[in-house]
C-alpha cells in the first residue's frame, strides 16, 4: 500500500514539474516580449491576443478531457466552422439565441462522436475523422459554400468585439468562466476522477465499478460543445460564419494539451496547464508577428502551418523523453 501511495505521489510531482515547465516558459517569453516590443503590453495587443486565442483555449480544454481518456477528437476544427455558420444564421435573434444554439449544435456533433466511440466501439480517431468530414460537408451544405455574414443590427457581434474596461474581450471572460468550471469538474467531481481513471487503464476503471461509458460520452460531448463555443467566437469576432475555417485547429489543440504536460496516452494532465500551453502557442505566433513587423524575419502566412507542426514536434520529442525517464524512475 505504501509503495502505491509513494508511486502516486511521485507521479503527481512529476506531473507538477511538467506543467511547471510550461508556466516558466510562458512567463519567460512574456518578460522577453515586454522588454523587446514596445507595444506588447499595450491594451490593443493584449485584447486582440486574448480575443484571438480564446477560441483555441476553449477547444484545447475540451480536447484535454478527450485526451485524458486516451482518445482524440479530430473533428473540432470542422465543428467550429459548422457552428460559426449556425451562429451566423441565428445572429438576428441576438446572442441569447445564437450562443446557446450554436453550442448545442456542437454538442450534438459531439454526441454523435460519443455514439460512434462508445456504442459502436469505433476507434476514436476514425470516428472523429469521419465527423470531421461530415461536419465540413454539413457546414458547406448549409452555407452554400459561402461565408455567411452575421446580423450587425443585433447584439451578437458585441460578444466577439466588445470589451470590458477596454481591455478584456467578452470572449476571454467567457473562456475564463468555462476554464474554471471545467477545472472544478476535473479536479473535484467523480466525473472528473473517472475521466482520469479511464486514461490510466480503462479495464481497471470498469472493474472498479466506475461509470466509464458515461464519462466517455461526457468528454466527447464536452469537446463538441467547446468547439461549438469557439465557432460562436469565430462568427462574432470576424462578423461572419466561415465554413472553410478551422483547418489545422485540431493540431493546435492537441499541441496545447501536450505542451501542458498531458500524456497522449491519457491518465495524467491538467486543465490549467492546457490553458498555459494554448497561451504559449499563441504567444509564439504573437512574437513572430512582432518580428515580422520589425523586419527581422519575413514569413508568409504559409509558414504558420510549418511552425505549428514544428512546435508540436518539439513538444512531443521533449515529452517522450520526459515520460521515458519517469517510467524508468517508476520501475
Amino acid at each position, binding site marked *: 500500500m505504501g509503495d502505491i501511495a509513494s508511486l502516486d505521489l511521485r507521479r503527481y510531482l512529476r506531473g507538477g514539474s511538467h506543467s511547471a515547465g510550461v508556466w516558466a516558459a510562458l512567463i519567460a517569453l512574456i518578460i522577453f516580449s515586454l522588454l523587446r516590443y514596445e507595444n506588447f503590453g499595450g491594451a490593443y495587443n493584449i485584447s486582440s491576443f486574448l480575443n484571438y486565442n480564446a477560441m483555441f483555449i476553449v477547444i484545447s480544454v475540451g480536447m484535454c478531457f478527450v485526451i485524458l481518456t486516451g482518445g482524440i477528437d479530430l473533428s473540432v476544427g470542422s465543428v467550429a466552422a459548422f457552428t460559426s455558420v449556425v451562429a451566423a444564421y441565428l445572429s438576428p435573434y441576438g446572442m441569447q439565441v445564437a450562443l446557446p444554439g450554436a453550442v448545442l449544435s456542437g454538442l450534438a456533433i459531439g454526441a454523435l462522436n460519443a455514439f460512434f466511440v462508445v456504442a459502436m466501439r469505433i476507434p476514436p480517431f476514425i470516428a472523429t475523422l469521419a465527423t470531421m*468530414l461530415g461536419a465540413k460537408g454539413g457546414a458547406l451544405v448549409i452555407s452554400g459554400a459561402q461565408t455567411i455574414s452575421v446580423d450587425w443590427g443585433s447584439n451578437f457581434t458585441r460578444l466577439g468585439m466588445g470589451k470590458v474596461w477596454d481591455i478584456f474581450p467578452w470572449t476571454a471572460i467567457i473562456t475564463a468562466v468555462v476554464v474554471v468550471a471545467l477545472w472544478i469538474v476535473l479536479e473535484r467531481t467523480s466525473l472528473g476522477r473517472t475521466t482520469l481513471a479511464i486514461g490510466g487503464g480503462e479495464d481497471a476503471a470498469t472493474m472498479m465499478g466506475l461509470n466509464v461509458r458515461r464519462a466517455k460520452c461526457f468528454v466527447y460531448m464536452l469537446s463538441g460543445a467547446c468547439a461549438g463555443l469557439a465557432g460562436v467566437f469565430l462568427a462574432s469576432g470576424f462578423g461572419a460564419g466561415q465554413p472553410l475555417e478551422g483547418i489545422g485547429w485540431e493540431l493546435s489543440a492537441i499541441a496545447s494539451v501536450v505542451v501542458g504536460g498531458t500524456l497522449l496516452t491519457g491518465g495524467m494532465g491538467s486543465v490549467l496547464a492546457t490553458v498555459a500551453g494554448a497561451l504559449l502557442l499563441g504567444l509564439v505566433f504573437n512574437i513572430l508577428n512582432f518580428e515580422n513587423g520589425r523586419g527581422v524575419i519575413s514569413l508568409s502566412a504559409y509558414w504558420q502551418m510549418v511552425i505549428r507542426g514544428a512546435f508540436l514536434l518539439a513538444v512531443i520529442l521533449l515529452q517522450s523523453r520526459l515520460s521515458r525517464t519517469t517510467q524508468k524512475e517508476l520501475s
Partner: protein
Amino acid sequence: MSDPTMIHSRFDPARHGALIALVVILAFNLIVTPNFFQAQTLFVNISQMATIAIVAMGMTLVIATGGIDLSVGAVMALAGALAPLIFLSDFAQANPGLGLAASIVVPVLVALFCGVFNGMLVSCFGVQPIVATLILFISGRGLAQVLTNGNLQTFSNPAFSYLGTGRVLGLPFQGWLVLAIAVVLTWVVTRSIFGRQLLAVGGNERAARMSGLPVRRVKIGAYVICSGLAGLAGLIVVAINSASDAARIGNLMELDAIAAAVVGGTLLQGGRAPIFGAILGAVIIQLVKYTLLANGIADEVALIAKAAIIIAAVYLQQGWKE
C-alpha cells in the same frame, strides 16, 4: 496462426461485403446514370481511381502494422509541388532528359524521407501514429505552399504528363501502374521475409519483439513505402492536371485511402494486408464519388456520404471480429 494468403478459403464478410457493394453500385449506375456504359466513363474512373488505389495500398501496409498515416495527402502536395519546380527550372530547360528524371526521382526521394520521419517518430520515439503523422499532415502542405509561395504552377510538358494521361494498350497508364505495384506488394506481403515480419508486428507487436523481429525497421519500412507511394500519386495528380496547386493536391486523400483500405478488408488493429482489397476499396470509393457527381449531387454531400461509408465499414468489421 491463420495464413494471410488463404483469405479466400473462409467466409470473409469484409471482403464479400465490399464485392456486394461494388455490384450494387454498378447495377445502380447502369440503370440510373446516363451514359454510364461507355469507354469514356471507364477511362475517367480508372485514372481517378488510380491515385486513391496507389495511396491506399501504402496505407494498407501501415495499418497492417497497427498504425495509420494521416500525412499522405500532404506528402502528395509536397511531391506535386516539387516536380514542376524542378522541370521548370533553368537547369531542366537546358537538359530536358535529366530534368525530367530529376523531377520524378527527387520528389519521390523527398516523399521517402517523409516516411522515414514518420516511421522514426512512431517506432523510435514511441509517438502514437495518429499524432506523429499529424505533424506532416499540417506542416507538409505548409511547406509545399512555402515552396511555391502559394501560387498555382501551370506547365506543358508532354513527357511528364504521360504519367497521368498516357495510354498503354488503350487503357490509362496509371491503371497499369496500379496493377504493377499491386503485384509487387502482394508478393512482398505474402512471400518476402519483410512481409511476414510486417504481419507479425501488426498481429502482436510484443510477441514479435520478443521473438527477435526487427520491429522498428519493419515499421519504418511500412511508413517509407506508404509515403513513397503517396509521392508517386502526387506526381500523377499533377501530371493529369498539367498544373500544380499545393493547397489542393491530395486534399482529404488520407480519408479516401483509409476508407479504401478498410472497405477492402484491412483490420484497423493490424495483422492483415489485403493489397487487392485496397484496390477494390478504391474502386468502390471512386464509383461512389462518380455516382454522386454524375447524378448532380453536390461535392459537399459526397463528403458526408464518404464519412458514412467509413463508419459503416469499420462498424461491420468490428461486428465480424467479435
